[in-house]
C-alpha cells in the first residue's frame, strides 16, 4: 500500500488541473463533483494508507516514496520524495478529512458565486500544497508546499477581488508570511552547509552528534526556522495578517486560516524538534512567543465586533497555546491540540459563515442576536464548538487538549509558573470571549432578518464536525481519569515524550484551577453581557476603559507600528525615487554636453565671411606663433 502514497497529493492536483483547464466549460454540478471528489478520494486513500500504516508499521517508522530527483548540482540533490510517519499521518488525516467536509460545505456555500470553478480550483491547489508540505521528505520540497499554501491563501483571501480592500488584505498576508519564509530560507541554507543535506530524517538523526547542545549555531538555526513558523502561524510579531485575512470566504477561513495552513509552523517545529531540543534558548523563545501571543490575541478577541475577527484572534491565541506546548517540550500535546482545534475551529468558522450568509453578509455581532431559535442546527453545533474552544470540562475535545498544555506549562522540565500563569489567564479570556460571542450572536433580540437558511450540504458537515469536536478528545485522557494515551502512543515514534519536573499526583489541582478559569470566564461575561448589561454600559463610559478597548480592538497597535516603521518609509523612498536618482547623473552628463553644443553652435553663423575671417585669424595666429618661437 506504500505505493499509493503519491496519490494523496496527486488527486487534489488532478482536480486543480481539470478545473483550471476546463472549469469554464463545466456545469456547476460537475465542478463541485470534481472539486469535492478529488479531496474525498484523497481522504479515502489516506484512510487506506493510514490503516496500513497502523496495522503493519514500517521499519524505521516511515513510509517513503521517491518520485524523481528534483535537481542535482554539485552534490546538492533534493528529491521529490514523500515520506509518511505518524506525525504526517495525523496531519494528512486532518487535512483530507476536514478538507473534504469543508469542500462539501463550500459546494453549498459558494453555489451562487459566478467564479465557482475558480474557487474549487484554488481550494484543490491549496490541499495539494498542504499535503506536499506535510508529506515532504526534505526541507526544500516542504518549502515548495510552504510557499504554495501561501499562494493559495493569497488567492483565496483576495477571492472577491473586485473590492480593493480584499486585495490589500491578501497582499498583506502574503508579504508578511514571506518575511518569515525568507528567514526560513536562510535557515535552510545554514542547515544545508551544516549537514550537507536537506532530508529531514537525516538532519534529525545527525544533529545531536554534529552540534553541541546549546551551541550558538543551533540557536540561530532554530530561531530562523521559528521565524518561518511565526509568519505562517501568525505568531507575535508577525500575526497582523490573520485578522485581515478574514476578507476571504468563510470556508477558506475555516480550512486555511484555522484548521490547516496556519498550523504549518507547529508542524515545522514539531518536525525539526531535535534542533530545538539542542538549544534551550530557542525553545524558551518558542514558549515565550506562544505565551505572549495567546494572551495578546485573547484580549483582542474580547473586543471585536466582527464575528470572524473574533475567531481569527482566537485562532492566533490557540496556536499560541500550541507554540507554548512546543516550547515546553510537550510535543504530543501540541499536536493533540492542533487536531482538536482543527475540528472545533473549522466548525465555528463554517457555522459563522452560515450565519453571515443567512443574514445577508452581516459580519457585526452587534447586529445579530436572537438566532438561537431561528437557526437551531447552527446554534447547537456552534455551541458545541464554542464549548470545545472554551475548554468546557469533561465533555469537550478542547478541554482534554488544553488541559494537557496547561499542566505541562507548569510541570514540564522547561515549564515555569509564569508560563502556566499566562496560559491560565488565556484560558480565562478564551472562555470569556467565547461566551461573549455566543451571547451576542444567539441570545437577546433579533436585529437582522434571516434571508435563507443553510441547506443540507452546509449543515451535514457542521454536524459531523460537531461530533468530532466532542469525540476527538477521548483518544487521549489524563492519567487521573482514564489514563488513555492512544494519541501520544501513536506519535511517540516520532516525537519524544515530555520530561516532567513535578509530580503527576498534583495534576488534579491544576485541573481544578482550569475548571475555575473556564467557569469564571463564562460566568463573568454572562453577568456583564446578559444578566446585567447596564454594568458593561457603565464600564464603557470610563475613558481609560475606552482607550484600552480601542487599543485591544486595534490589535495592540501592531499594524500602526509596522506602518510607521516599515511601510511608510518604504513607500516614501520608492515614491521620491520613482525617476531613479542614478539617472540624474547620466542626465547631468547629457545636459553638460548639450550646453557645450549650444555654446559652440553659436559660432556657426552661416555667414561665409565669418568663416573666412576665422580661417585667416587662425592662420595668422599659427604663423605668428611659428615666427615668434
Amino acid at each position, binding site marked *: 500500500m506504500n505505493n499509493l502514497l503519491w496519490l494523496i497529493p496527486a488527486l487534489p492536483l488532478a482536480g486543480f488541473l481539470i478545473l*483550471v483547464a476546463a472549469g*469554464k466549460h463545466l456545469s456547476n454540478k460537475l465542478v463541485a463533483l470534481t472539486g469535492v471528489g478529488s479531496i474525498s478520494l484523497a481522504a479515502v486513500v489516506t484512510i487506506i494508507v493510514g490503516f496500513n500504516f497502523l496495522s503493519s508499521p514500517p521499519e524505521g517508522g516511515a513510509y517513503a516514496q521517491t518520485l*524523481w*530527483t*528534483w*535537481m*542535482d*548540482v*554539485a552534490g*546538492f540533490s533534493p528529491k*521529490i520524495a514523500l515520506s509518511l510517519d505518524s506525525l504526517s499521518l495525523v496531519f494528512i488525516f486532518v487535512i483530507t478529512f476536514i478538507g473534504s467536509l469543508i469542500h462539501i460545505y463550500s459546494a453549498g456555500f459558494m453555489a451562487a458565486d459566478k467564479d465557482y470553478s*475558480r474557487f474549487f480550483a484554488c481550494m484543490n491547489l491549496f490541499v495539494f500544497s498542504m499535503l506536499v508540505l506535510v508529506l515532504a521528505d526534505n526541507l*526544500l520540497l516542504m*518549502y*515548495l508546499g*510552504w*510557499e*504554495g499554501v501561501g*499562494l493559495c491563501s*493569497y*488567492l483565496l483571501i*483576495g477571492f472577491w*477581488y*473586485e*473590492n*480593493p480592500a480584499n*486585495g*490589500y488584505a*491578501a*497582499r498583506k498576508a*502574503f*508579504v508578511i508570511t*514571506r*518575511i518569515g*519564509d*525568507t528567514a526560513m*530560507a*536562510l535557515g535552510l*541554507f*545554514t542547515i*544545508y*552547509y*551544516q549537514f*550537507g543535506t536537506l532530508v529531514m530524517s537525516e538532519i534529525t538523526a545527525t544533529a545531536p552528534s*554534529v552540534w553541541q547542545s546549546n551551541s550558538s*549555531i543551533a540557536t540561530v538555526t532554530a530561531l530562523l526556522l521559528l521565524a518561518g513558523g511565526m509568519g505562517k502561524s501568525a505568531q507575535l510579531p508577525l500575526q497582523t495578517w490573520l485578522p485581515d485575512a478574514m476578507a476571504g470566504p468563510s470556508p477558506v477561513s475555516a480550512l486555511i486560516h484555522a484548521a490547516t495552513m496556519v498550523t504549518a509552523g507547529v508542524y515545522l517545529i514539531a518536525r525539526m524538534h531535535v534542533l530545538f531540543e539542542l538549544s534551550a534558548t530557542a525553545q524558551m523563545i518558542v514558549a515565550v512567543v506562544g505565551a505572549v501571543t495567546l494572551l495578546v490575541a485573547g484580549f483582542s478577541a474580547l473586543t471585536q465586533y466582527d464575528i470572524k475577527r473574533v475567531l481569527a484572534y482566537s485562532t492566533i491565541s490557540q496556536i499560541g497555546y500550541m507554540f507554548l506546548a512546543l516550547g515546553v517540550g510537550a510535543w504530543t500535546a501540541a499536536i493533540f491540540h492542533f487536531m482538536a482545534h482543527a475540528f472545533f475551529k473549522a466548525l465555528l468558522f463554517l457555522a459563522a459563515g452560515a450565519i453571515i450568509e443567512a443574514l445577508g453578509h452581516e459580519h457585526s455581532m452587534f447586529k445579530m442576536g436572537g438566532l438561537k431559535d431561528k437557526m437551531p442546527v447552527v446554534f447547537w453545533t456552534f455551541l458545541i464548538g464554542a464549548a470545545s474552544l472554551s475548554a468546557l470540562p469533561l465533555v469537550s475535545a478542547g478541554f482534554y487538549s488544553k488541559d494537557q498544555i496547561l499542566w505541562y506549562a507548569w510541570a514540564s522540565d522547561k515549564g515555569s509558573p509564569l508560563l502556566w500563569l499566562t496560559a491560565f489567564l488565556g484560558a480565562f479570556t478564551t472562555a470569556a470571549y467565547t461566551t461573549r460571542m455566543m451571547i451576542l450572536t444567539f441570545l437577546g433580540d433579533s436585529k437582522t432578518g434571516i434571508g435563507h437558511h443553510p441547506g443540507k450540504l452546509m449543515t451535514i458537515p457542521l454536524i459531523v464536525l460537531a461530533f468530532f469536536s466532542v469525540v476527538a478528545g477521548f483518544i487521549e485522557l489524563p492519567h487521573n481519569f482514564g489514563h488513555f494515551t492512544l494519541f501520544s502512543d501513536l506519535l511517540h515514534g516520532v516525537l519524544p515524550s515530555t520530561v516532567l519536573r513535578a509530580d503527576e499526583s498534583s495534576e488534579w489541582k491544576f485541573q481544578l484551577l482550569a475548571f475555575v478559569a473556564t467557569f469564571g470566564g463564562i460566568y463573568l461575561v454572562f453577568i456583564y453581557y446578559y444578566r446585567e448589561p447596564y454594568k458593561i454600559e457603565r464600564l464603557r463610559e470610563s475613558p481609560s476603559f475606552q482607550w484600552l478597548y480601542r487599543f485591544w480592538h486595534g490589535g495592540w497597535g501592531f499594524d500602526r507600528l509596522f506602518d510607521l516603521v516599515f511601510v511608510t518609509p*518604504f513607500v516614501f*523612498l*520608492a*515614491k521620491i*525615487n*520613482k525617476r*531613479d536618482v*542614478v*539617472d540624474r*547623473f*547620466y542626465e547631468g552628463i547629457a545636459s553638460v554636453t548639450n550646453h557645450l553644443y549650444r555654446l559652440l553652435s553659436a559660432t556657426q553663423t552661416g555667414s561665409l565671411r565669418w568663416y573666412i575671417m576665422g580661417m585667416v585669424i587662425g592662420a595668422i595666429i599659427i604663423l605668428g606663433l611659428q615666427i615668434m618661437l
Partner: protein
Amino acid sequence: MILVWLIGILMGGGTAALVLGQWNKTIPRWIALVTVLTGFLLILIFWMDQYQTIDEHSADVWLIDFKRDWILSFGISFHLAIDGLSLLLLVLTGFLGILAVLCSWKEITERTGFYYFNLLWILVGVSGVFMAMDLFLFYFFWEVMLIPMYFLIGIWGSENRIYAAYKFFIFTQASGLLMLLAILGLYFIHGQNTGIYTFNYFELLGTVIPSGTGLWLMMGFFVAFAVKLPVFPFHTWLPDAHSEAPTAGSLILAGLLLKTGAYGLLRFVIPLFPVAAAQMALPAMILGVIGIVYGAVLAYSQTDLKRLVAFTSVSHMGFVLTGIFAFNELAFQGVVMQLVTHAISTGALFIMAGMIKERLHTRDINQMGGLWSRMPKMGAIGLLFAMASLGLPGLGNFIAEFLILLGAFKVSIWITVIATLGLIFSAVYSLRIVQKIFWGPQDGYGNIRDFSLREILVMTVLTLSIVGLGLYPQPVIDTASPAIHKLVLLLEADKSNIGKEIKYQESYVR
C-alpha cells in the same frame, strides 16, 4: 558547420525579408517565422543529439569547433565554437526568436520588411556573440546586435522612442569601446609575451598579465558586460529602452541582450582574468546585491507597466551578478538557470504588457484594474508569471534564485542575507502588478477580448517551459555542467596560486 548554417539562415532570412518586403507587407513575417523555426529546430535537434553524450567530467567541453582564417595578418580568424553553456543560450535565442516573431505578428504594420530584417539581424548578432571564439569576431557580433536594436526602438517604439534609442545606443556603444580597448590591450600583451599576435580566445586564455594591467583590462570587459547586464549604476538605459521598444524589442532585450552580458562575464572575464576577477569578487557581489534591492524598490514605485517589469529585470540580474562572483558550482548553475528562466518569465510579462497595450492603449497601471473578470485567461497567466518573478517554488525562477543564494551563502553570509531581502521586495512588486491590473474594481473599457488562439499558443508554451523548468531543471543543469565544472576547476587551481588574496568567510561551513 551547423553554426555557420545557423548564422547564414538568419542572415539570409533577414535579407530576404527586407527585399521581398518591398512588394508585400505580409510576406516578411512568414519568412521570419520560417527562418527562426528552422534555426530553432536545427539547434534543438543538435541539442537532443548531444544531450546523451554530455559528460560532466570530460576534459574537452567543446561540442563543435569551427575555424577558418579571416584576416591572417592581424591574427584574426572566423572561429566559432560552442559548449553546453553556449548551446543552452542558443536554444533560448531560437525559442525567443520564434516568440518575438509571433508577438510582432499583428503589432507591426509599417515597413514590415525592414522590421523583420532588423529582428533577424539582432538574432544573428546574439547567436554570433554566443559562439564567437575569436575576440575580434566577438566584438564584431557585439556591434551587429546593437545597431538593428537601435532601429527597432527608434522606428517602431512608442512616444519617447528617439530618446530611448539614443540612450541605449550611447550606453552600449561607449562601454563596448572600453571592451575594444581591453581586447586590443590583451592582444598586444599576448603578442609581446609570445611573439604571436592573435585574437584567438583559446590562445589568449593563458596570457600572463601584470596584475595592475590585468585589473584595468578586466575592468574594460567588466564594464561592457555590466552595462549590458545591467549592473546597478549602469542600469538606467534599461527602463527607457524597455518601455519604449515594441513588444518584440522588449522581449529580445530582456530575454537575450541582457544575457549576453552574463555570458560575457562567464566566458571572458573569469577565464581570461581569474586573478583580477577574484579581486573584483566582493565589490561585484555588493553591486549585485545593491541591484537586487534597488531594482525591486524602484519596480515598486513605477506606474508604467513595462518600466516596472524593466526594473524587476535589474533586480533579477543583480542575482546573476552576485551568483557569478560567488565562484562556486551551485551559484554558477543558479546563474545559468536564472538566465533561462528570467528570459521566459520576464519575456512573458513583456508580451503580456504588449497584449494589454494592444487592448487598452495604455501602459499606465493606474488606469487598469479588474481585468480578471474580462480576461480570466490572461489573469491566470499574468498571475503565474508574477509568481514566477517573485520566485515561487515549483516555477523555474525559484530554482535559480535558490541555487544562487545557496552558493552565495557559502561565500558571504551577510551579502546573502541582504540579497534575500530581494525575495520580500519581489513579493511586494509582483503582487502590486496583480492587484493593479487584474484585481480591483473593473472600469468601463467597452468590449475587450481575451486571448486569441495565437496568444494562447505563445502563453501555453511559456507556461509549460517555466513549470517544467521548475519541477525538472536537470536537462539545463546537465547541459551546462561540463562548462561550469571547468570554470570551477579553473578557479580552484587559481585560488591555490594566489593564496590569501580571496578571503572566504567559511565560518559556518563545516
